[in-house]
């Protein structure tokens, strides 16, 4: 609109990337300049993204802009381009808009008090703002890229930033929260490493999948993929192996989103990702990182929907996506029931809500009315970005004031920090799906799509999860802001540390996000009303105008039932203090949930332990034998050359045999494989 689309589409990720690179330069001038520039870059990015949205609404079209040749080799010609369509612009707005609010919030949040009570900035802020901007830039690069490979690059940049930011406080000397490590800093570094490694497992599948898909289709480009997908003669000419490989490629690609969006079985990293600053958690959960997986699936669902017509077996992709999503949603919700740390509850809720998105997107390929399911999934993506950013920032505000992560150290904070409490509650209402927040509309759309499409069991799982969600969300609200004050709070107050409301730089983002979360109905109008003409100009034409807006029916009543069944017990137990559940908490079920279904322990034993065991075993037995052999050859030759011995006898024989065997093996493998 103001900036030409073809320029804005580039600038929107180049600006934060350049901002990141310039951060150390600004830091030389002064800390305040650096912070101000970070905020400025954030808002410039947000402005560009919003401007792109405006252009999109005024002149709906999907357009591919190519800038430069990235690499040429053999049949590969990789061009670097950006693709502007409603989906990419939506994600850019989420990453840029919410990202900018989080950077603004950081100004206040990353300032602490030293022993004398003076305001001090974190000493490593240059590193912090560098990676925050790189994070936003990488995420927008990921969504704007016009081909799978550039998306993968953005994907890895985001992963790298998460590694650096989760382990941001790597030299804190406080005692570790977990027994295995010496200091909290070490624990934080391990958490960052875990996040990187677990998502890397998914990335391995993603990279292999992308390459296999390229061999099948001959392109990385989304537009070309889409036009091939519906082409029956192309599908007919594939041959047996390649058409059998297509579902394999699709599933391998889905491994990437499983890792990045923390779905079962790679969900284990997200709770540990809470080790970073809360602003980082907000960015990971709301604006970037975990949304990348949902984006990629949303980007490829139309392609694979078209392929199901011509290639047998692609449906397995949609079944996997939907069921992994639904199962993860349920599993994470049960884990959230027993968490004591406010950020951990939010972490599990993110895993659970992402599961909803995958359920809806997967269902799009399983039901006749794929439009409803697809748009429900993407709309929930937007809704979740808003309310989860709100919840994390508000939680950050609480943590900042109380200086503890555990909800057992909070309680009764409502009167001290009304704005934080009110905005947090609005976010919680949205998470629980209460009318009229944005979460209500998006969740109801998902239920509607599942039920109308005849996916009854997916619906049941999603519905039960929604009840659990309402319960744990309000358990969190009541434990934090209502009820009796905890001993920790009393002690803080007794030491003259008054619990106070956050500064304005932190309050503004909260209010903006709360307004957005509350104005949910309006969003549905914007999303499907104003966007509907462009729905048809998506790569895959979806007739969004055919969606029923504000549908009220029997389903609405059921949704109301969720709040009643979920919130009432939370109110009774955690606000009124009724009932004693300690035996249940400490019983086998409680332990099972607290230990996260023992998945984490199992992985640690099998993968980390197994890897180390195998490598140490190889080192002790195989490598040392090989090295001893090499040494013996040298010694043998040495003794010959010095004429100490006329013949080589003794131990050498076996070693020479081993050498012969090694060379013979080498030749055999080459000749016969």
């Amino acid at each position, binding site marked *: 609109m103001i900036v030409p689309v073809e320029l804005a589409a580039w600038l929107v990720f180049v600006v934060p990337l350049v901002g990141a690179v310039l951060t150390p330069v600004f830091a030389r001038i002064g800390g305040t300049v650096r912070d101000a520039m970070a905020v400025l870059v954030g808002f410039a990015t947000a402005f560009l993204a919003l401007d792109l949205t405006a252009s999109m609404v005024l002149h709906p079209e999907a357009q591919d802009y190519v800038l*430069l040749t*990235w*690499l*040429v*080799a*053999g*049949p*590969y010609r990789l061009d670097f381009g950006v693709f502007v369509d409603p989906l990419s612009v939506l994600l850019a707005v989420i990453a840029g808009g919410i990202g900018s609010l989080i950077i603004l919030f950081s100004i206040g949040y990353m300032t602490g008090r030293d022993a004398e009570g003076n305001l001090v900035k974190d000493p490593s802020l240059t590193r912090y703002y560098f990676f925050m901007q790189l994070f936003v830039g990488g995420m927008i690069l990921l969504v704007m890229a016009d081909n799978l490979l550039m998306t993968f*690059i953005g994907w*890895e*940049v985001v992963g*790298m930033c998460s*590694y*650096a930011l989760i382990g941001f406080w*790597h*030299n804190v*000397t406080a005692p570790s929260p977990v027994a295995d*490590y*010496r*200091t909290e*800093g*070490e624990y*934080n570094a*391990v958490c960052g490493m875990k996040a990187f*490694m677990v998502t*890397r497992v998914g990335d*391995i599948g993603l*990279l*292999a999948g992308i*390459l*296999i898909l*390229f*061999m099948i289709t001959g392109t990385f480009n989304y537009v070309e993929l889409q036009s091939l997908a519906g082409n029956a003669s192309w599908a007919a000419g594939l*041959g047996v*192996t390649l058409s059998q*490989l297509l579902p*394999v490629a699709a599933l*391998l690609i889905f491994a990437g989103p499983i890792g990045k969006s923390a779905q079962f079985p790679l969900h284990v990293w997200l709770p540990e990702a809470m080790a970073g600053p809360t602003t980082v958690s907000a960015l990971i959960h709301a604006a970037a990182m975990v949304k990348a997986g949902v984006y990629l699936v949303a980007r490829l669902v139309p392609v694979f929907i078209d392929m199901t017509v011509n290639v047998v077996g692609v449906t397995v992709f949609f079944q996997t996506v939907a069921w992994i999503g639904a199962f993860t949603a349920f599993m994470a919700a049960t884990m959230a029931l027993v968490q004591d740390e406010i950020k951990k509850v939010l972490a599990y809720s993110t895993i659970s809500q992402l599961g909803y998105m995958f359920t809806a997107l997967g269902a799009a390929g399983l039901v006749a009315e794929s439009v409803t399911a697809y748009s429900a999934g993407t709309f929930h993506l937007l809704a979740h970005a808003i309310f989860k950013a709100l919840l994390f920032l508000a939680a950050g505000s609480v943590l900042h004031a109380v200086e503890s992560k555990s909800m057992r150290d909070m309680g009764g904070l409502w009167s001290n920090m009304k704005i934080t409490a009110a905005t947090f509650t609005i976010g919680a209402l949205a998470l629980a799906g209460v009318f009229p927040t944005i979460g209500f509309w998006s969740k109801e759309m998902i239920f509607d799509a599942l039920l109308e499409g005849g996916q009854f069991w997916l619906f049941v799982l999603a519905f039960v999860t929604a009840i659990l969600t309402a319960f744990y969300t309000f358990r969190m609200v009541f434990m934090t802001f209502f009820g009796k004050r905890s001993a920790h709070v009393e002690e803080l107050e007794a030491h003259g540390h008054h619990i106070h409301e956050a500064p304005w730089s932190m309050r503004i983002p909260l209010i903006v996000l709360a307004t957005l979360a509350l104005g949910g109905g309006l969003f549905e109008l914007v999303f499907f009303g104003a966007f509907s003409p462009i729905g048809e100009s998506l790569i895959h034409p979806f007739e969004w105008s055919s969606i029923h807006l504000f549908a009220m029916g029997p389903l609405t009543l059921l949704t109301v039932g969720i709040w009643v069944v979920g919130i009432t017990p939370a109110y009774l137990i955690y606000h009124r203090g009724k009932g004693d559940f300690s035996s249940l908490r400490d019983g086998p079920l409680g332990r099972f949930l607290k230990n996260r279904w023992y998945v984490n322990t199992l992985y640690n034993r099998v993968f980390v332990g197994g*890897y*180390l065991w*195998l*490598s*140490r075993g*190889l*080192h002790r037995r195989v*490598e040392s034998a090989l*090295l001893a052999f*090499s*040494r013996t*050859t*040298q*010694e043998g030759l040495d003794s010959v050359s010095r004429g100490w011995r006329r013949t080589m006898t003794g131990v050498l024989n076996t070693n020479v045999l081993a050498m012969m065997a*090694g*060379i013979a*093996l*080498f*030749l055999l493998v*080459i*000749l016969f*494989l």
Partner: protein
Amino acid sequence: MMQLVNIPLLSDFPMILTLLGLTLGGLLTLLVGTRSERGARALSVLSLLGALALNVLLLLRVNVSTVFHDIVWLGDETHPLVTLGFLGDGLSAPVAVLIISLGLFSVVYSFAYMRDLHRPGVYYSLMVWFVAAMVGVVYATDLLQFFLFYEVMLIPAFLLVYLYGVSEDADERTRNAFQFWVWTAVGGIISIFATLMLFSATGTFNIQALYTAPLAASTAKVVGVVFLLGFGIKLGLVPLHVWAPPAYREAPIPVLVLLSGAMTKTAAYGVIRVVIPIVRTFMVDYSLGLMTISVITMFYGAMMAIAQRDLKMMLAYSSISQLGYLMFGYSTMTEVGLNGAAFQLISHGILASLMFFAAGAIKMQTGTMEFDQLGGLAPRMPVLATVFVLAGLAIAGTPPMCAFPGELMLFAGAAEMIGQGWAYVAVLVVAVVATGLTAAYYLWAIRRTMYGPVPQGLESVSDPPRSVLGIMVVMAFFVVVIGIWPWLLGQFLQPVLAGLVAGG
């Protein structure tokens, strides 16, 4: 790309001048070194700088036209038997620039690292000659010339390990150096054997002529396998890697950089320049077997790396594992795979050296490279830590750093074969899994050295001297730039490789 700079004479004979300059420069270094260490330092740096400048000039013109000279060495003018040829094209020029730059960096690094140097003239002249021999290999147009330089290269390499090894015990040093000598010499002899077989079949040593010379399938297969066995020893393919750990343990960091970053690359260069174009069409049948060996090397190296207690040895095994990637690219016998291998050759040359330099810098500042005695260095050495983390992530194949485009192309080469059966799919997936292992041990190493609590005695360490930091920052710069826009490097390699695949 346009020809940016053209200086008469220098641009016309850059390769001959490089070799002459380095040989004479080495000699002068040796002579002056008997009197003054500073003189030896200055002369070695000057000769390497001159060589670097000449090769950059060469690089700037190779995309317009290749540079070629030859001098008949044996035989008469019309029927030369052996010629001394010098070929500068988009493949040899970047490799030469890499080797000379690493030589220059190692020498400058030695100023700070090699304290109390015994006979500095010998050390610096050997470094210069080592570089000269490696560059000679890269320029060669004749197989005998190639292997002449290839074997000559071992003399300075062996002497550097033997004379300047880190072991206190002289016997231990001798043993380690001799293992290195024996194995790599044997590797060279095996390769020369293959050369002679080629000569008896075709009657020529000229590499260019061999590309198109008719060759019986059976001979070609044997020649290919023997060549790969010979080069495989120097590359360190498992189980032929046995010389590498002792030699790497023994070599001081600047020498190690040349061994691992540059010398193994001459073998990799030999595979791509000599073996692949001559026998590629016959070797396609062995592709899967070679890919399997490469994957074993990748995994075995990664397994050994994680079992090490010492940063230097972890890097040594990592280097072995990374050379498995290179071989993987060759094994696919596809154009993309070869491009990937050539790209990886340059990228690993930079990255492995950068990591070794970083490890040496840690040793300089803390006195140790053992993981148990390190930790929490990041706040104390901010610049070094940044480079270390960046290079570690880069080797693990994280974009936008320079290992990613190379690995991508290697894997793309393997992906090209998947139409031929599920075994290829399995090899591809397993190979990609190896990048995950690489990430695992590098991240673990980073955590153990850079993060967490600081051990006693290291509270007051600081960043290494500026010369050392400067080298690492320059290398890190190229790591990122090439990673962001790989075509900067690819534009040189790609046309040459396309030609080699098409049969010279």
